[in-house]
């Protein structure tokens, strides 16, 4: 079964063709990097306009790359829940039009559910139940994944997501956008123990996060150094900041693993591409005899292949959306019952 996936929840216009929920025939991603650099982040209306401009070309490119036409496609899956409202709308409008014109089943997917499947696409041996840390510029949560249908949200960020903190600190330090890869690279030349930044909520008993205070601490320290005309050890600041973030993420995730008594950890979302996060998780999991899985780098950030994979699983379970499918920007995780998402 060939599923066409469409993802436009934030700043990536993406379409993919995935066979049987596991073989990626294409995964076209048009990132809005030029706009992000210009505005220093995602501006919802600007991003939505770019989606409307690109969506048709991206879908065509995904079909061409897969060597398929719409006649070969068996179903359409689209991110309809969680994201920027105007951005989500473009993807859903495209998906329902294709579904209507080609008489194809349509399925709306929660963006976070997609990220869980990104890791399954990369690691077919990733088993259930497991604890999943999914973290990007837009979300930051720990989930207990009993199986793909049953997700328990254990905790999430109370303010900034980790990726957002990376972006904002990078912007303040005068580094490029997006901040994650830039800080990751710069940190390799720095001393991660040079500064002792706070690890907010690291030891709290819940599984929630807060990165806003850490971000402010870094920015205040940077301002003090400038005011004192002191040297600005950018690499050391970046490395110490990154360490504070990943240390907190790893510690809290492993505590959740302990509570649930599982042996498997899944780390996904844009920040799962961070090399220090991967290193710390691998070290800690090895010590505790746990298995940890990360998506391929190409599947860490937003992409439509993961949406197609999630869609395949739902369609196999007999679920579909009708042509009145709408978008739910703040939808909680869970079932397809759209009334509960309103």
């Amino acid at each position: 079964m060939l599923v066409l996936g469409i993802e436009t929840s934030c700043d990536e216009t993406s379409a993919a063709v995935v066979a049987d929920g596991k073989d990626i025939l294409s995964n076209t991603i048009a990132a809005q990097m030029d706009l992000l650099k210009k505005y220093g982040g995602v501006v919802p209306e600007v991003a939505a306009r770019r989606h409307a401009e690109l969506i048709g070309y991206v879908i065509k490119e995904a079909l061409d790359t897969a060597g398929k036409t719409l006649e070969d496609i068996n179903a359409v899956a689209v991110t309809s829940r969680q994201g920027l409202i105007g951005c989500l709308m473009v993807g859903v409008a495209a998906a329902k039009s294709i579904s209507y014109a080609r008489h194809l089943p349509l399925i709306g997917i929660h963006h976070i559910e997609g990220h869980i499947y990104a890791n399954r696409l990369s690691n077919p041996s990733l088993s259930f139940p497991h604890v999943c840390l999914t973290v990007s510029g837009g979300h930051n949560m720990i989930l207990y994944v009993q199986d793909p249908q049953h997700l328990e949200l254990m905790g999430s960020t109370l303010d900034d997501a980790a990726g957002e903190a990376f972006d904002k600190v990078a912007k303040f330090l005068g580094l490029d956008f997006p901040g994650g890869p830039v800080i990751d690279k710069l940190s390799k030349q720095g001393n991660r123990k040079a500064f002792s930044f706070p690890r907010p909520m690291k030891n709290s008993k819940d599984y929630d996060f807060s990165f806003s205070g850490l971000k402010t601490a870094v920015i205040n320290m940077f301002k003090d150094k400038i005011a004192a005309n002191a040297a600005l050890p950018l690499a050391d600041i970046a490395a110490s900041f990154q360490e504070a973030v990943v240390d907190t993420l790893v510690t809290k995730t492993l505590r959740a693993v302990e509570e649930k008594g599982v042996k498997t950890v899944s780390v996904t979302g844009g920040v799962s591409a961070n090399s220090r996060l991967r290193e710390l998780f691998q070290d800690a999991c090895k010590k505790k005899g746990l298995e940890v899985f990360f998506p391929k780098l190409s599947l860490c950030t937003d992409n439509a292949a993961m949406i197609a994979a999630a869609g395949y699983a739902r369609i196999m379970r007999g679920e579909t959306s009708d042509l009145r499918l709408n978008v739910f920007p703040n939808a909680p995780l869970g079932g397809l019952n759209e009334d509960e998402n309103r």
Partner: protein
Amino acid sequence: MIVLGIDTSGYINAVGVYDGESVLADNRFPARTDTLEQIVDNIDVTLKQAGLELKDVEGLGVGLGPGSWTGIKVGVTVGKMLAFSAGKPVAGIPTLDALAYTAQNESLPVFAVIGAGVKDMVYAARYHFKANEPVREGDYFAGDIRELVKIIKEPVVLAGPNAGHYHGILNREAGLKNVMIITEIEPSGAAVACLAYLRLTRGQSDDPLSLVPMYLKESTAKVFVNKYAGKP
């Protein structure tokens, strides 16, 4: 040639069908915030009402705006992806052109006006007619309704969803006496289909994937960035 026309630039989903001789359907579904939810259903209902299915449609017309930014992003995306998926030719029709077409007058030029969502701000354009087809004169206008006083020098028809309201401002506050006829009209799917029919039968179709909404106004973020970068 059977042409399906859609326009979601206003607070309605306008869906119509024209077959080259007569209008087979021309529906306006109220849609203040739920264009996305309704639009494909509304297309289906309209086609069925005309005794048709999408496969019977031989061409599409899509209202490009200006109007609601969300509305036109949804409508243009639906129009282009229907055309692409069903393999039908498509023509993008500016909504102001379609309003002028509906309000056409034998002797007077037509000013089509659409509210821009901010108080007294409008999108507008001036048209004369050639063989029943609107021909736009000059650029599209985006600005305060009162500025039209400088542009409207002769007797005209003022047409659009709130033409009466805008005429009131022009008349009371700006002393404009040149509006002879006020035509209160919402966008029409059939008008979009008629104009698309004329273009498509002349072989003037658009590449569906290239269709983009006609915003006529930059997003606020872009306006600010340009301002601080010293650009106009």
